[in-house]
């Protein structure tokens, strides 16, 4: 379960940032990446956070994963506050991005073991879990090959295995399919569905409306750090006034 209440995040702007962002930021000391957003994700549901690049999706997910501290508001993951009980939160989550985020000089076996050790898994439980994951993902053939020498698909499987080796209650996917081919994207979407089937809480960000339609139960539209919609996919569909998801998205963020 993830509970987000009145969440905001401000970043201080350096001179270099102000130069890069242009004239409208010349006098600003900070930028608000996320502005007073609230939503909750329940176990057994997939919650999609949709918005264009720079909307505040990654910042939100990083705050949920305790990598960033909120400026205002609070986040609770499985009952633990992300600021005051950040280590407890990290024990409960699995975090995955579009980048495979693997160590090229390790083998899939070593990579998965490393994450298991960091999560404090007992050895026999780890061996058991690794066996079942490697069976499920068909990883045995390349488990002892250096990651640098693996294909993109093999790397993605390794990335999945390292994310879920500790069987997290909450899964966070930050644009997990960005830059991936159709086959690998499909494998990721299947993983997201299987997480739901296992009763996990899934928070998933994307800028592709099609993916939301494929897997999500609930969705929130985020744009310029603010929420433009927060509700079930069915309600969103019922309220649609435009022919496609994309058109509806643009209509909502531009029309507000």
């Amino acid at each position, binding site marked *: 379960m993830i509970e987000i209440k009145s969440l905001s995040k401000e970043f201080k702007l350096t001179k270099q940032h102000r130069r890069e962002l242009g004239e409208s930021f010349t006098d600003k000391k900070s930028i608000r990446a996320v502005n007073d957003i609230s939503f909750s994700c329940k176990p057994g549901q997939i919650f999609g956070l949709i918005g264009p690049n720079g909307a505040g999706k990654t910042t939100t997910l*990083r705050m949920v994963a305790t990598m960033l501290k909120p400026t205002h508001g609070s986040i609770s993951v499985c009952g633990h506050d992300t600021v005051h009980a950040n280590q407890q939160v990290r024990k409960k989550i699995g975090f995955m991005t579009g980048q495979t985020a693997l160590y090229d000089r390790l083998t899939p076996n070593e990579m998965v073991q490393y994450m298991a050790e960091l999560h404090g898994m007992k050895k026999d439980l780890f061996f058991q879990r690794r066996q079942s994951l490697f069976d499920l993902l068909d990883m045995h053939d390349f488990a002892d090959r250096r990651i640098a020498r693996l294909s993109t698909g093999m790397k993605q499987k390794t990335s999945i295995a390292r994310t879920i080796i500790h069987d997290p209650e909450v899964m966070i996917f930050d644009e997990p399919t960005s830059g991936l081919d159709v086959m690998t994207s499909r494998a990721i979407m299947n993983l997201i569905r299987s997480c739901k089937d296992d009763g996990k809480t899934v928070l998933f960000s994307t800028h592709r409306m099609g993916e939301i339609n494929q897997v999500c139960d609930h969705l929130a539209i985020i744009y310029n750090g603010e929420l433009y919609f927060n509700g079930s996919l069915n309600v969103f569909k019922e309220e649609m006034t435009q022919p496609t998801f994309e058109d509806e998205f643009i209509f909502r963020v531009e029309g507000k």
Partner: protein
Amino acid sequence: MKIWIIFKKELKDILRDRRTIMMMIVFPLLLAPALITVVSKVQMMQMKKAQEKKLKLHFIGKEYAPNLYQDFVSSERIIMIPYLQKDSIQHYIQDEFIDAVIEVSSHYNLALGQNKKASIKVYFKGSDSMGITKKRVEQIIKERERFIINERMARLHLDIDIMDAFEIDRVDISSSQEKIGKAAGGFLPYIFIIFGFMGAMYPGLDLGAGEKERGTLETILSSPASRFDIVMGKFLVVLSAAIATSFIAIGGLYLAVQQFPDIPVEILQVIQDVLSLKVFLMIMGLVIPVSAFFSAIILSLSIYAKSFKEAQSIVAPLNIIIIFPAIIGTLPGIELNHTTALIPVLNVSLAAKDLVAGIIDPILMAEVYGSLFFLAGLSIWFCVKWFNREETIFRN
């Protein structure tokens, strides 16, 4: 605490990196010894060549100084060039057509007959053959001078010893270890400061900026490991690489010196004494904090950088900043005192020199250790604090 888990993984990771292995093992083990071997071999070859070379000389005024001229003619490995334009002799020497010209004035015999000094001009190229041409020419002139002085003394019925008012008996109380230590000891800190820095550089860049570039930083930040565990695990790996590189470099140097055939036995003996367990441990005591300082600084800069390339461009100039005090430490007259003992890197350079020479002052040594450990602690504290800043790790 997950420090050990992170340390083990990062160590395994960097030991599989070819660049790190090159910087950590191959370069220090081969480069320093190869450099020393090649430089000394070339130097010795050049000296031998210059000494055995047949000098081409021209003598102006042989009719005034036939004896001196004869001395040159009868000397070994000298060819006299008979006819040269006097106004072109400087060009001939510059173009290395001849090596030197001896010019005797027409008053040569008159001056000598009156027990005065006769002027002799020697033209030579000082930049040539490490000054050996000049030495060989002057040696022949000196021998003739000694002969003339002897003759004068005999004529005046004086003992040749009258020329010397004192007989100085020089008693050098410095041990051979001290002499060699003072002369060559400055080289040792160079080795472990520079190689230590080099050894820390690649792992430091890889474990900070490299992690950002690969996107693995988020993986590890979302794990239950605390930021302190992460940064300390990484720091210890960088530190281990720096220390290992320093000692591999010193070890390589030691092996090279032992293999070198032209080193006198007494120097080898001194080297054995210098590398006693006590000196070795004391040098290690210097290497650890200075490496910790380097490692923490490199890691901090690397964590700050957005990419591996940016990290390289930030860290590379540090090489010069670090080499500078190490060079000052080798200059004559710069000694370890209560002030220099507090200046980072310079204090290591000076303390190592005194350690090798066996004349280290324990109070100054304690001061050096104190300042180094303080600095190391401060840089580690900064590194941990730096890693906890969102603005640093998510700078882009």
